[in-house]
């Protein structure tokens, strides 16, 4: 009998790390964004996508709520809001 032992490449996507988020989540204001892509680079889950200015957004199924994107944003255009809030 065998348990889960090996994984083919790309299977990290099966782990929905969004469940790790406990207190806060990032909110992408999409107002002063300059499309510098710093948030994309620092995201440990690689779950932030976007192209033109003010189009960036993260996938909450994977976002752990670490706050790195809000910290790095030079325009303070990403803020951390309380989980469950309507903001």
């Amino acid at each position, binding site marked *: 009998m*065998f348990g889960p*032992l*090996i*994984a*083919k490449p790309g299977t990290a996507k099966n782990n929905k790390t969004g469940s790790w988020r406990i207190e806060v989540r990032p909110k992408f204001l999409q107002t002063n964004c300059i499309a510098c892509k710093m948030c994309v680079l620092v995201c440990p889950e690689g779950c932030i996508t976007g192209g033109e200015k003010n189009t960036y957004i993260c996938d909450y199924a994977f976002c752990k709520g670490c706050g790195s994107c809000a910290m790095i944003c030079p325009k303070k255009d990403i803020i951390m809001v309380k989980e469950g809030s309507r903001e």
Partner: protein
Amino acid sequence: MKEFLEGSAAVARAVKLCKPGVISAYPITPQTHIVEELAKEIADGKLNSRFVNVESEHSAASVVLGAVATGVRAYTATSSQGLLYMSEVLFNIAGLRLPLVLTCANRSVSAPINIWNDHQDSISMRDTGWIQFYVENMQEIVDLHLMGYRLGEDKSIMLPVMVCMDGYILTHGIETVDIPTQEEVDRFLPAYKPLYKLDPQDPLTMGLLADPDYYMETRYAIQETHKDVVKLIPKITQEFYKVFGRQYNGLIEEYRTQDAERVIVGMGSVCGTIKDVVDELRSKGKKVGLLKIITYRPLPCQEIYEALKNIPKVAVLDRALSLGSYAPVASEIKAIFFSKKIKPKVISSFILGLGGRDITKDSIKEIFRLLNLKEKSGEFIDLKPELLRESIHGLDA
């Protein structure tokens, strides 16, 4: 062909016949002769294998882990401190379900430093998930290495095997051994075909993070597979018999236990001494016998139960301790009989032969004598009370 060989040389011959692609080991007494012999065979061009020199046992175990992970048959050997230094990797090899054969030349564990034989090193590794064999003599050593690869590499098992042989007594002792031919071994042991392997052309990840959603199933699977091992060993020994003509039970060996009133349970080379004492006492009309445990992991509980249930008095020998608790083998034998209706009246536990103290025929006779008295729990045999003090003050005064 029958040859007169040192135990270590016999192991090396058996391993050579199994054609491992990678061998890695670090020297440690009393194991060193085995890999010395294998290194020589490779250097002389008689064995097509890669010998990887390493700086420690931890690295040796890691090298063979990596080798098996890439789909190559591998081998290592160690002893005592070396086995303990490997321990972290040993858990990984079993956890990754990589079949491997390791020879453990059983030796005591420091401190105080002692290079002689007892079972503390491998008994301490009993919970790693490895299959463990304890051998009595040189022929068993050769045969169980062949069976070890066959068993571990079975598609339904995929687990590593530790063949435990008593240091010096078996590693340096010399006996007549029947070494099989390469054709016979090839017939019994096909080339290793892995279920999965590390390959840059077809990448996969082994040993990845298993969070609480996944970890428990990997451990459950090993636990269940050990039950399959108990069922498979008799089939493999049967196939072994067909090719080589030597018959083994593989799990346990019952020696003159029919109608016996007193039986000793033992593991390893001491069983040879016990057999001699049993023969001697039987010739005087005493109904005594021996139950040898060959496969200690998985523990063949049902077989041991059937073998001992009608024996009135049983003595379990341990050559290792679980300091602060009951002796390891004895506690498990007792556990087998707890809540059973038919069972021995007495299961006494004896500890002897630690750090290479000789187990003589007199030691065994003393155990048979003590078995007539009330049940003993963890009784030390051949202890020297004159060496013990209640206080360390004035020790040398």
